[in-house]
């Protein structure tokens, strides 16, 4: 039995590496003229990685005795897996390597972040012991994954349409957004490196001590001693659970993101948006717009079913009320209202193209907010806190 857990861990690593290879190959085939074999190879590697991740999921399920979607690590890896699944299915219809690259990059970052949360197999508390756990979570994740496709193509659409010749507001917003994405990559890199070398720093406070996995630049205001030479006290009003540590991680990630961004800029000698634009310009923009709309049209019912209806049926059983204004519930409702607005505005007001693309970007931000921020910043009932 013990072996199952170890094998499943290795399968996840294999999947992660396959996705990395897949991203490189897809980027290569996007940069070159259409080369069928390269695309096929990239697709094959990604599909193989997905199968490996499916193996990880299945073995972990067998080992733990419950569907591995019960904590943040498990949910985020599962969400990544759903993104890849949607990508693989979509690629049969729309063979655009760049969409695959975008989807893979986001999945890799999500799975990378997932690995930074506790990975132990945890037992289920009574309220989670229900078949609805995997019915609700898997459908909700699938719905969110399909909705995310509208972000991938929307973002490409914006890259496609933005005038990079002039100093333009949109161009700067794009760069800012890329810095954010690079910061997530920076976080994964930093956390991975420091974990590899087994770094920990024990910061002793007046009441409790906190163990940092990254160098503790920012420490709580009541710190007594810290092993690190630089200590910046965080302001007094930051006093949620481990607020200083989270703040420290956030600032370091942003710094790492900026460093990565600068490196790329030095290398390419222009804005990243401008460097990517020649690739994106090869894509037919009407097709991008079309895919974006379709993904919302397909994803919205799945999301409604999984994240609201199934969720409410289960909540009624487990918590004796189907709706309790728990932050995670509320943000599922916010997501739902937002995409409902997207569909109405698009169908009734004819917002297409660039405006629709921006809405898709905002929608994805809301999904990500619900995935991470609600768990890390707002305390709620959901298990992934």
């Amino acid at each position, binding site marked *: 039995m013990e072996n199952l857990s170890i094998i499943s861990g290795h399968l996840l690593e294999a999947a992660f590496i396959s996705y990395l290879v897949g991203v490189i190959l897809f980027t290569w085939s996007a940069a070159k003229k259409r080369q069928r074999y390269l695309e096929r190879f990239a697709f094959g590697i990604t599909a193989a990685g997905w199968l490996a991740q499916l193996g990880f999921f299945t073995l972990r399920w067998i080992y733990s005795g419950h569907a591995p979607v019960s904590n943040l690590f498990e949910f985020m890896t599962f969400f990544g897996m759903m993104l890849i699944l949607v990508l693989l299915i979509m690629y049969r219809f729309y063979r655009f390597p760049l969409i695959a690259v975008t989807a893979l990059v986001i999945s890799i970052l999500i799975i990378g972040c997932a690995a930074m949360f506790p990975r132990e197999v945890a*037992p289920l508390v009574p309220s989670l012991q229900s078949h609805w756990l995997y019915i609700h979570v898997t459908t909700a994740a699938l719905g969110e994954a399909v909705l995310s496709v509208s972000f991938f193509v929307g973002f490409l659409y914006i890259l496609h349409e933005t005038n990079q010749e002039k100093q333009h507001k949109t161009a700067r917003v794009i760069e800012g957004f890329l810095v954010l994405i690079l910061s997530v990559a920076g976080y994964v890199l930093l956390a991975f490196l420091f974990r590899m070398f087994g770094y920990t720093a024990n910061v002793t406070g007046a009441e409790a001590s906190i163990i940092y996995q990254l160098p503790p630049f920012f420490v709580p205001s009541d710190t007594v001693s810290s092993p690190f030479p630089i200590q910046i006290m965080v302001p007094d*009003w930051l006093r949620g659970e481990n607020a200083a540590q989270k703040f420290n991680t956030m600032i370091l990630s942003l710094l790492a993101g900026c460093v990565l961004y600068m490196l790329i800029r030095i290398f390419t000698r222009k804005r990243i948006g401008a460097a990517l634009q020649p690739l994106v310009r090869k894509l037919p923009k009407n097709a991008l717009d079309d895919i974006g709309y379709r993904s919302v049209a397909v994803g919205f019912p799945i999301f409604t079913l999984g994240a609201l209806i199934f969720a409410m049926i289960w909540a009624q059983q487990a918590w004796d009320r189907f709706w309790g204004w*728990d932050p995670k519930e509320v943000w599922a409702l916010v997501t739902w209202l937002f995409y409902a607005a997207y569909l109405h505005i698009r169908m009734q007001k004819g917002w297409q193209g660039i405006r629709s693309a921006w809405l898709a970007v905002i929608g994805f931000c809301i999904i990500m907010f619900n995935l991470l921020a609600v768990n890390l910043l707002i305390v709620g009932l959901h298990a992934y806190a």
Partner: protein
Amino acid sequence: MQQCPFCKGENNLVGGPCPRCGRRLTEKLDMRYEGTIRRSQQYNRTLIDKVWRFFSSVRNGMYILLLTLLATAVGTILPQRAYIPIGRLPGEFYAAEYGVFGRWYHYLGLDQLYSSWWYMTLLGLLGASILIASIDRFFPLRRALRMQPVKRREHFLRSQLYVRHSVIDDRERLMKNLRARRYRIRQDGDDYLAEKNRFARWGPYVNHVGLLLVLLGAFLRLFPFFYQDEFIWIRDGETVVVPDTNQSLFIKNEQFIVDTYDTDDPKFKAAIEQEGRMIPKNFTTDITVFEAEDHIAGDTPDLKPLKQMQVAVNHPVHAAGFTIYQSGYQLHEFSSLTLRTENQDGSTADFRVDTENPQAMYELDNGLHAELIDYYPDYRLEEGKVITETKYPRNPAFVFDIEGNDDHKERLFVAIDDVVSETGTNRYSIRAVDYDTHHVSGLSVKRDLTLPIFLLGGVIFMIGLMQGLYWQHRRIWLRRQADGSYLIAGHTNKHASSFEREVERLLDGYKKGGSS
């Protein structure tokens, strides 16, 4: 300046293609409601017309929806009042934990946002918008789609998004191919109308009916007939009446069981260590539900056992029209405290205080009398004052006046781990020496007749959503021209590009002689 009917952008080039969406401005028809007139566009005289007009506008509906969205999000910035720690006063809690912002959050009522009158109003406005905008469009659309002639004017056809000229040699074959693509064909003379998936047009109306049912369910919950929500704490072995049932329903807790996960289980060992405490595996209460026989108020009723069953988390049970949920528990509540008093001569006497019904006076063997002055079932010190956090004996404390035969009186505060003399002199002493505990099971007893309405609303909403989003209403008109060729026009309510592909394939496949 003119408005482009497709992308709503301002447009300078009258007659030319719209610079934003590329479609021709003057030539295409707005087919959204088949170009029919809606009530809201006809009348604008009375107040009712104006209100109707306001709510029938999708634009206004979107403003209401976005306001609702923002308000909903704002409610999660700080925890809602229902989620703040039990026993904390909201006024004090928000200011203490979140400073000035918290104070304002509480002052503005955002800590109870979801039950505030203005949030309710927003939901009501949203409902009105959904209802009126749907009615306003449904009837004209139905009329237009029902009375569709096969023959259309040339101008109407030329104003469609898809227009093409073609010579059709073998009409039968084309019709066969169209039928194979699930088109229904009507013929009028030499003209044809092929149509499919008209039901998709009703999707939005169906899903709006579902949404209105959900809102109706939420409204009905305000009435106790539809929604009754009771909560009872029952000790092991105790029988408790369910409140507001006219003394007719009683529940006995036969046994409450808590299981925790084995800390030595190699599978979960790491996770349990990480958690730092025992992880519960199961909460179950064995209960018996009793129905009271007819009795006169005030009498002890005769209880008739109705059902014996097991309630666990995620496994609610049904009895007497109610659903019973395992929804809370309290381990090791104090059932009694044994206190030991000591007289000044050193003689001691023990007495037991029942936490449920403490006596007013205890006569003790060593000649002392203890008079109960105050009882705090769940005491806590707050700013030097003793308060009780709940009415449940989780941390009981008592204040006794202890008096000997010589009329000397001392006031003593005693809790499980603490004794304070309030009068200063200490001839007598008191302390807790023993205690008994019991488990308490928290059951939520609910009758909710709105649940079927919500479920029905949800099902109808899903059906409508899929109906409207997964199918498209597509029509192809074929109009015979004077020279024998055909004018072919097509309309789809969405996903124009795949419709165009379908029509192209149909016509080309037909030409090549293959079947599509």
